[in-house]
């Protein structure tokens, strides 16, 4: 099971569940690449068992929501123009 976190700028209650979201995920796998960020399309659920991977949510100033969500990553997305 992969483990990510993401930042949302709204309150946790406003997190959109089961809808496709484009956002930044940080990979929490230990090692030198921990906290690597990537844009991705994904769906989340507050039910920690619904989707295959684990997602921790943080609010805009870094506050950690103490209960984990689950996430299904649809695809990773590159937002930087090619060649740069």
């Amino acid at each position, binding site marked *: 099971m992969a483990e990510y976190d993401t*930042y949302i700028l709204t309150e946790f209650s406003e997190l959109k569940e089961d809808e496709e979201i484009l956002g930044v995920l940080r990979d929490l796998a230990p090692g030198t690449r921990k*906290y*690597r960020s990537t844009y991705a399309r994904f769906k989340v659920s507050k039910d920690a068992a619904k989707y295959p991977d684990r997602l921790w949510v*943080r609010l*805009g100033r*870094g506050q950690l929501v103490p209960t984990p969500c689950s996430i299904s990553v649809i695809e990773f997305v590159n937002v*930087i123009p090619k060649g*740069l």
Partner: protein
Amino acid sequence: MAYKYYKDNRAYIEALLKTGDAIVVNDEVDWDLEMGAIVRRVCEKKSPSPYFKKIKDYPGFEGFGAPIASYRKLAVSLGLDPETPIPAIAKEYLSRTAADKGQKPKILNAKDAPCKEVVWTGDEADLFRLPAPMVHEGDGGRYIGTWHFVVAKDLDTPAINWGMYRQMVFDEKTMVGPVLPFSDMGKMFYNKYAPNNIPMPFATVIGPDPLSAIASCAPAAIPEDEFTSLLMGEPVEVVKCETCDLYVPAHAEIIIEGVIVPNVMIEEAPFGEYTGYRTSPREKRTVYRVTAITMRKNPILPISNMGIPTDEGQLLRSFSLGLEMERMLRDQGIPITGVYMLPESTHHLVVVGVKPAYANIATQIGQLVFGSKLGPWFHLVVVVDDKTDIYSKDELIHNLSTRCHPKNGIIITEQGVGTPLNPYAWPEERKYSRAGKVIFDCLFPPEWPTSMVPIKVSFDNVYPKEIKEKVLSKWNQYGFKD
């Protein structure tokens, strides 16, 4: 003639070890929060700088925390005795930097430049091969650039800029950070490169010598490489980058080269900031793409940990902002006695001493400093008379509480330029860098007749000279131990 100074970060660390302002940490420390926590505590307790010899996961790298987070270290960086009092450090800085022109840098060949001992290009130039620390729990990422500066060149003029703008690692080839529109690099990038969709070459200099670092975060009126030469008393030594035409200090620990991407922003922050809070939220900010990394063998990665006082952001920015203000006010012929910006105010509050020569001189001072290029970074100006010790917090509180008229003495300008980092500001104010500005006029109005002016009741002020001398000479004889 060159002043006494340290050509690189290493010689500076050695000097701090000798004066007791640094210690060696031989235990392995974790880049993931542990180093950050140590450096934070060092800032809060004003402890010596930790020189980390072993970093988890990153053999061959060392670290160095809180490089100039105290006036003692600032004095050492200028080649002065660590005990040098603040006014004397200020005097030295002002006299070294009085000239309006410095010397052009001296260009070294790559073979003579320590920062070229290791060169990584292509896939090798991978940011995760550097021990970027997770500085505070909850930060938006690992920050590789906390004690560093970004070198850039203007698009259509020869102007060079060195500016300390924080940088977060996003992925192996991407960094991101805030480049404020009123900063020198912000003006170059947003006004010239970005509208023409031209990527802007940059070079991040990590672990520079202390004087280049001081220059890069000072509001210098001349290019920072020349400003550095004024602090050193001789040209700074530079070397050409591998993948662009920029020049970087040859003795720095690590150089990251690349381009700033026009018209694409990605998410950065939150991050512990110089105000002592994590204020500016996660937001889309300026993108840096990496083309090469060069470094010294066994590089020492420095960490500045911003938070509650005192960190480098507060100490150095207060120091140089205050002194640049002093220079400007003297140039304008205002009869000031001095300017002191308190690091504890996170460079938001400045005290100006002045001879109260005419009515509303405090307003004039406030308007001049708020209206200058320095203005966005602070919002509180306290003007005190020429008898007040501008460095004394006790005298500041006493002045504010007794001399500042609660109505006439507080002059508020509602629409000034601020920064997105002000913790008290509403989101709209942050978004557009708007801020109110306040002048506290602690001068008794000069139009008051002498008979009406309150007399300050202090040992210095209300006793005849011969009584004071007698009391001072017999002080210990009376039985006092101090």
